[in-house]
């Protein structure tokens, strides 16, 4: 078993930067960097190109789904389907056939276009490895020395089973993420439900013998006032510490009254965030919180939901329905976070 490492790190702690830096360190090692979303993947590629011009030949960069489909499902589909050249691409929208048994693998996992349903991809990959006598992992061991998974909190369901296989392999695996920012999931499988979001910490703890654990609570992005606010949302994690040297006036958490909105926006020019598209943002141009993930802004202005407003008043995270959304929204900002009340 190779050395595996999980880095659980706060927003703005340069997670992706860490992945890129380590992946580029040794040109003699064959490295895979994978992450769930295409947006994040594009950003990883941009940052590598920013550093070294082009993605080096020893580094492969692919989304989690391309990785599973091209490196596990297609090569060893025969072990599950008993035929070759069947699996095509990914069906991102549908769900596996409820009325088919898993033994009828073609009907269970694939649509009529021979694309595999997203909630079955990692499940299929695990079955293929078991049926082919460990060939999936054997092949990956020949292909990669080190696998980096960014935004690992997005992996759910059978993804975790596959991650277990990788942890047991000769490949060194480094997973990086922040369960507090679990706003996306690769699929909606009920498998391993309890390990979603903050529960991922428990999953890692159960694997403390096969995977080292490192927690980083320093934020290079957010001012200390924002860090303090964000720490209140997830008391089970170490409190965030800002590494920003000093901040220039008017920083921190602002409550903005509706009638002051215009002058506030004119003064601070914040990025406006909303929970959903249907939120009334008083005519201001806004983006969904989910979309803002991974981005950095000087200042943000949030149109909060009702539970968020309650939290701002009483500071009790227990009533928050989507704490990760509030956490993501607040930690986008370097200097100030405004809430429209």
């Amino acid at each position, binding site marked *: 078993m190779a050395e595996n490492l999980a880095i659980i790190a706060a927003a703005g702690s340069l997670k992706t930067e860490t992945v890129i830096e380590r992946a580029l360190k040794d040109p003699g090692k064959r490295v895979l960097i994978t992450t769930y979303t295409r947006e994040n993947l594009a950003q990883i590629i941009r940052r590598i190109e920013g550093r070294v011009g082009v993605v080096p030949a020893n580094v492969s960069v692919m989304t989690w789904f391309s990785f599973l489909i091209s490196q596990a499902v297609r090569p060893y589909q*025969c072990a599950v389907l008993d035929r*070759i050249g069947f699996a095509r691409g990914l069906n991102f929208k549908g769900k596996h056939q409820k009325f088919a048994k898993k033994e009828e693998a073609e009907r269970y996992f694939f649509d009529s276009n021979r694309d595999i349903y997203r909630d079955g991809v990692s499940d299929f990959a695990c079955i293929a490895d078991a049926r082919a006598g460990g060939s999936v992992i054997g092949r990956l061991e020949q292909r990669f020395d080190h696998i980096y998974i960014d935004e690992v909190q997005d992996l759910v369901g059978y993804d975790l089973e596959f991650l277990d296989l990788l942890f047991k392999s000769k490949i060194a695996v480094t997973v990086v993420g922040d369960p507090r920012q679990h706003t996306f999931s690769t699929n909606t499988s009920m498998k391993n439900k309890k390990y979603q979001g903050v529960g991922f910490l428990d999953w890692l703890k159960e694997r403390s013998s096969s995977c080292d654990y490192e927690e980083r609570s320093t934020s290079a992005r957010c001012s200390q006032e924002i860090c303090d606010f964000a720490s209140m949302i997830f008391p089970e994690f170490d409190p965030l510490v800002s590494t920003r040297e000093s901040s220039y006036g008017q920083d921190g958490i602002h409550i903005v009254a509706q009638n002051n909105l215009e002058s506030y926006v004119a003064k601070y020019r914040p990025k406006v965030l909303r929970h959903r598209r249907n939120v009334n943002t008083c005519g201001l141009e806004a983006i969904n919180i989910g979309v803002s993930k991974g981005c950095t802004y000087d200042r943000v202005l949030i149109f909060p939901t009702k539970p968020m407003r309650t939290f701002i008043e009483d500071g009790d995270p227990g009533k928050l329905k989507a704490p990760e959304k509030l956490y993501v929204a607040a930690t986008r900002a370097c200097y100030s976070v405004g809430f429209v009340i």
Partner: protein
Amino acid sequence: MLKKIHIENFRAFRKFDLEFRDGLNLIVGDNDAGKTSLLEAIHLALTSRFRGRPFAYDLSPHLVNQGAAKSYIADVAANGVTAHPPVVLIDLFFEDSDEFADLKGENNHCKENAPGLRIRAAFDPRYSAEYQSFITSDAPVSLVPTEYFEFEWLSFAGNAVSGRSVPVNASLIDASALRLHAGADYYLQKTIDEQLDAADRVELSRVYRSLREIFSKDEAIAAINEKLGETQKEVTDKELSLSIDVSQGASWESSIVPHLNELPLQFIGGGGQSMLKILLALYRNLAKSHVVLIEEPENHQSPASLNILVEKIRERCDGRQVFISTHSSFVLNKLGLDNLALLGEGNPFRLTELDADVLDYFKKLPGYDTLRVVLADKIILVEGPSDELVVQRAYFDRHKKRPIEDGVDVISVRGLSTPRFLAIAAPLGKTVHAVVDNDGKAIADVEARFAAFDQHAQIHVHVSDPTDGKTLEPQLLKANGRDVLNQIFGKGFASDEDLEAFMADHKTTCALGILEAKEAVKMPPYIEAAVG
């Protein structure tokens, strides 16, 4: 590097499997046995190109194996739309090393977990409607409708591959056909191009472009262009001039030609051209693994230059895999029987599959005799030169033609080595008639030596009858009588014993006498049977 290949319905092959050796692979076979098809299949799987063009664009019915096409056409005639068009398939297996792990998976014909590349051209179900109306139309189907085929180039992982992702470089050199036309040919161009680094290529393009300016600024050209401009004003108001084309489609490759001793390559003799091409390919320094495919290097070469060429090929096989098809016993001898794969009508066959003592025998023999077995349509094996001459005569008397005109090769083997030749001929599916002396033993005892070939229907052993004598000479005497032979040899022996003794002492002279005799010669029954 490359471990083996499996081919279905491509060119000469209905179904074909061959394992490769590291380093050198010599491919020998009759015309039409598939030597060229094999080299093309390897190159196709590595590059997806066929004769320099993307295979997807050149998928013609003639690339489908003729046997497969015939049975498909018969199938259509009998079963109409339910007939299955043949699938063209090439599975090229690589050695299982980390270098090739990206190509690894089970998507090959035998579902083996191995790295490799697959070419597959098959009916595309999206054309079902068109195909149905094609089949049911009045015109009879006479070709495989490859226009309704889809083409795939995949790794055994099941993923599409691109030229860049293939970790092996391939160079194909066909020395038998020189395809030099405008500029250098595709393969040569590629060879030269890959020896240049990025900076070289940029510089070459820059200089080529600047040539255009120099050309147009030349006083003579300027004057000509001015004149052209004047006269053309009546035809067009645009400016007409002569210039060098430096657009994308006309890059340096089409106008700049390799020169040897200041002669453009296409003006050099065939031998020089193919020597240059082969050596350029062999001397490429590549970061990737390298496969070199050479078709008939002996073409256009004098014995002396072939000697040099073969020597260089042998030197440069280290660290690369070289496939050579050849007709030349010289090449064969120099490069070694161990590396030989024989293509015949049956499965391909390696000499190393033979028993150690048989292999040892052929290693000592000049390669020529081995090649004759491989290349002949039909073979008559005889024990010694005098038997050969008599068989020639017997064949002519029967067929009014010399054996060679029918593609029958009469091969004289030394002593008791007939079974060794049969050991090569049998797996190749060659038809062989072996003429064997009884040497005083019963026919059954002699035939026992050939028991191993009993199950090969195309191998026939003809043993002389011991009651008519031990060897050819008494057999001839028995068939023709003393008077006839005395006349043929111009002798006057008074007894059979004396005549037989003379014949035994002058075997070749007597055999020549038989061959050239004006008189009718009666042949012993076992020889009659062998030429029948």
